[in-house]
């Protein structure tokens, strides 16, 4: 499994309230949520994001509320992977459960810049920044997590397993 796209870069402690503000949580429709993704810290995100693009952030990405609407909004906006120095615990679980690939890699989180072209190989955990021509080693996904992501989420995975 691979992902490739352009990078949106954010700092520390990107919380779930800025990923998807609670004023939009009267909806649970992924497409509708995606139209407000990141708007409180980056009003241009929804206009610029292309399918396959990648979010790179520093520590504690996804802190705050347990709203699964946050990874759902990111995934529905077209983002193929989030790379961060660290993730908040509930967000990490939720992202895997809904099939949004995420990967912890402090070196990549530090070096990669906004607008860089980046690819990720989930089997090996290798992250390549093609713009600065640099390679990083992130945590490879365990096989069961790859299967969950391929099935587009935990529930589909459980159903497919039968």
């Amino acid at each position, binding site marked *: 499994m691979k992902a490739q796209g352009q990078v949106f870069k954010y700092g520390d402690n990107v919380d779930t309230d800025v990923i998807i503000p609670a*004023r939009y949580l009267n909806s*649970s429709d992924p497409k509708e949520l995606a139209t407000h993704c990141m708007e*409180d810290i980056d009003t241009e995100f929804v206009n610029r994001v292309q399918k396959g693009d990648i979010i790179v952030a520093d520590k504690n990405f996804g802190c705050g509320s*347990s709203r699964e609407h946050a990874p759902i909004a990111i995934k529905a906006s077209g983002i193929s992977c989030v790379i961060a120095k*660290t993730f908040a615990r509930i967000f990490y679980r939720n992202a895997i459960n809904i099939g949004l690939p995420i990967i912890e890699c402090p070196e990549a989180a530090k070096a990669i810049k906004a607008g860089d072209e980046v690819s990720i190989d989930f089997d090996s955990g290798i992250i390549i920044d093609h713009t600065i021509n640099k390679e990083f080693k992130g945590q490879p996904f365990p096989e069961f997590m790859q299967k969950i992501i391929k099935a587009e989420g935990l529930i589909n995975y459980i159903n497919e397993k039968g």
Partner: protein
Amino acid sequence: MMGMTMTQKILAAHAGLAQVTAGQLIEANLDLVLGNDITSPVAIKEMEKMKLDGVFDKDKIALVPDHFVPNKDIKSAEHCKCVREFARKNEITNYFEVGEMGIEHALLPEKGLTVPGDVIIGADSHTCTYGAVGAFSTGIGSTDMAAGMATGKAWFKVPAAIKFILTGKPAKWISGKDIILHIIGMIGVDGALYQSMEFVGDGIGYLSMDDRFTIANMAIEAGGKNGIFPVDAKTIVYLEEHTKRPYKIYTADEDAEYVAEYTIELDKLRPTVAFPHLPENTKTIDEVGEVKVDQVVIGSCTNGRMDDMRIAAKVLEGRHVAKGMRCIIIPATQAIYMQAMEEGLLKTFIQAGAVVSTPTCGPCLGGYMGILAEGERCISTTNRNFVGRMGHVNSEVYLASPAVAAASAVTGKISCPCELD
């Protein structure tokens, strides 16, 4: 055998294991699965995909519509309808309709649904509140809630723990809120990431159950997986008043391992305020300076309990909120509302120029019932002060105790209640 923390012992028992160690992956049996009106509809949709006959145990699921309830708009009403119909179809015992509902984390302990030794998951990050009664409880998302409702099980990575030793008697005006804000200021919003926060020490004996609920509630604001208190005489009295459920008391082994230890001298603390836009941006009341505020909110799963109502009334008694100030007070459950009425606190609030609302999460997450306009400031007893949390992206939330919030309502700027004496 290596010693285990209180959290590890509870998890081991629920996984049918004699021993667990930090980092180990386990599958644990659940005593309670919780959801609200925002997270449950997503979980219900996921569960429907699973084509099951029903839930694992209709008595071990709690559904509490509380965030946008009483419904603020049509879409919220549709979400609540979805939860209501699911509860009816599956004969969920602990579904709480408007009229009996309260803010979930104040309501469930009050109803006796959370007891020592339980393993509880909830699709709400402040599910960690029940650590106050000696349970392992943690927030999860809607998919985990769906799997939990279906199977009665969840997987966990056994957490390492940080020990917080609380010593001495809290100084005047110091509440659970000041203690937890002080701790978050000290270790940061990811200071306990993936870890348990275990509270011990002689200072705990001075803390009311409401103080402990407030402290455990905000463990998530330090990134913690859970926050947990030992069961003592006060816990037992609380349980006798609220539940008939049998329970088991777990205590940490003397040789349990902790990744870090902090001692907090409660007699030396000062009222503490978290500045925008992170709960870790704390200052003592002496360092605050002149900060004018437009609104005060006293309520939420963090500080909407009886102690909070009483202290707010004590500060507001015989006083009036500053001109142009909006002071919104939200008792967290119907029982608290009723008790506040019987004690005459509601009259005190209204005479002071505050408004009193029916239980709801409302303004805490910027839902409704006190949304901020551009450039406005609120001092609030809630739990988060992120960008845009209570309204406009350019509004500000300051977190504080009910005493400080009430005093600030009177003066119109962030104030210590001691200044009013």
